[in-house]
């Protein structure tokens, strides 16, 4: 139940366009966007997170990836990685 509230609260923040939860295989578990967009985001960001994590660990094996933020012209994609799951939020930053 806390989980539901948390996710709902995240979605209701100013500028948030969508939230996606992805598991370790790249399957979207939960999403607020439509299916095709979700599948695209899930697949691409999953691979990118793996790559980013391996980059950080290559440079320093003690290190690990805690957060990934991609700012683009139109919006910002934020990825919170974990061993098994991935929380992706797309937000339109304040402008």
């Amino acid at each position, binding site marked *: 139940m806390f989980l539901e509230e948390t996710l709902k*609260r995240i979605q209701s*923040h100013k500028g948030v366009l969508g939230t996606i939860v992805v598991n370790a295989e790249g*399957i979207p*578990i939960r999403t607020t966007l439509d299916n095709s967009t979700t599948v695209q985001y899930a*697949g691409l960001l999953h691979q990118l997170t793996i790559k980013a994590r391996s980059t950080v660990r290559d440079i320093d094996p003690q290190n690990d990836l805690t957060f990934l933020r991609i700012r683009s012209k139109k919006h910002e994609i*934020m990825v*919170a990685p*974990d061993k*098994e799951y991935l929380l992706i939020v797309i937000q339109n*930053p304040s402008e």
Partner: protein
Amino acid sequence: MEIVYVYTKKRSEFGRQCNFSDRPAELHVDILPDPTLAGNFIERNPCDMPIQCVQEMSEHEVNTERFATETRGINHVEGGWPKDVNPQEMEQTMRYRKKVEKDENYVNTLLQLGSLMEHCIKQNNAIDIYEEYFGEEEDVIEGTEEPPSAKTINVFRDPNEIKRTATSLSWHPDGGRKLAISYSSLEFQHGSKEMSFDSYIWDLENPNKPEMTLKPVSPLVCLEYNPKDSHILVGGCYNGQIAYWDTRKGSQPVEMSTVEHSHRDPVYKVIWLQSKTGTECFSTSTDGQVLWWDIRKMSEPTEKLVLDLSKKGNLDSSLGAISLEFETTMPTKFMVGTEQGMVVSCNRKAKTPGEKIVCTYSGHHGPIYALQRNPFFPKNFLTVGDWTARIWSEDIKESSIMWTKYHMAYLTDGCWSPIRPSVFFTTKTDGTLDVWDFLFKQNDPTLSVKVCDEALYSLRVQDNGRFLACGSHLGTATLLEISSGLSTLQRNEKALATAMFERETKREKILEARHREMRLKERSRSEQGKEEDAKDGDTEENPEDLVAQAEKTFFEIIEAERRKNEEEEQKIQAEMSKVGKEEKEDSEEKEIDEMEVRISFC
């Protein structure tokens, strides 16, 4: 000296096994050193003897074969689902998802990630970290003026063994990503039998191999894309025919004009006309004709004009045309640049062929290779020919209003910049490309770039004014990028250019008026003295008499010179004979002395 040792064996002993036995060495021959032979040699001291004790290495060159790359893409579809779940089935996927959500690990992880994420979201909402504080002040940055430069981006070489001149270039109308280049050999009877007739369309990204080949019946001298339909190109051939291609239909021309109704000389220029159907074009050649065509019906030209200044339509006395000009904003007028150095301005809509030729502008000493109106000031046009480039105003027919100095090499092609009204480009036979900015400097080009060692024959600027391509004698087309200073419109440039053109036009008008006055005065003076000078007047009108007179004066001068030379020679001869006599006396004395010396020796 022959050293011989004879081995003998009885016949009956052949075939027997060999019995070897030891015995001491026997000296058969002993050749002692012969010191007299040393007389044949000269001792050399010191003697240079090179020795090298090093690892022996050899040099090899290897060039790999060109690597052909292809770009491919993969389209990802949803995947990653476990084997028993069919991703198409909504129910199965929902069930799977619900199962995952019940997992405790899932809940804990997500709570953690959720709080982390919220922090970042709030951060984003609090402050915009990428805010631009000193936003649109780019106008100040314009002040940094870089020196004008041109950079070579790509070079497209003629893939054939026998290189032909790149005579004409045409940019693709949409965006200019492709370049059509026509190749031919313009030297009379220089084309060898193996010379290929093909012309190519190149993609700017791939300079190694042309994107498409166009195979005409005879080499193409000029080639143009249809500005309305980017798949259609029209080309003028060396044998006078016109052909048109559709790039969707392959390398062979879709249709060619018939030989009887085409030009009789190579077609030097073909331009598309502005028409509703977008299928009309006109062409010109040194046979003195300008022909209009509709590509849907190439068997005959729709209209014909003979460039005969006496307005009789006589082909024999017509002027050969090398360049053509047509501005879409003035569809009834067009101009032709001739081999004789004149620009003929014509009106297409005139009723009779006689009225088609409106006026002429002469001023060049040789053929006019390029002719173009200024895209911003259509009343002014640029002509390029002999060793200069000239700018004309339509109203002034006597001479050009501005011109460049005489160069050391012929100018072969020129065009205006489509972005800046006072900038134009010219190419020369020494391989240099000149960029002129007439508002900045009129004596010299603002930028002079040596593109290649051979002569440059053609030039085309892309519509954005940034890129230009020039074609050379050996078929190499170079793509250059012009620095932004020369390809962006400056402040006030249009106003300044307008003022400059008007000023020069006015100056020429005043000069013209003065000349006319002076001529009138001369004429009135000559009319008064006409009765006295009647005879002279007659001989002046007769060119043959003039020639005879010139010959007579010439021979008289020669005779005078010859006589002078003879007199001088005689004088020299006289002196020589005097000196000769003296010399002879001297030499005789010397001989006597020698004989005396010899006698004393013996």
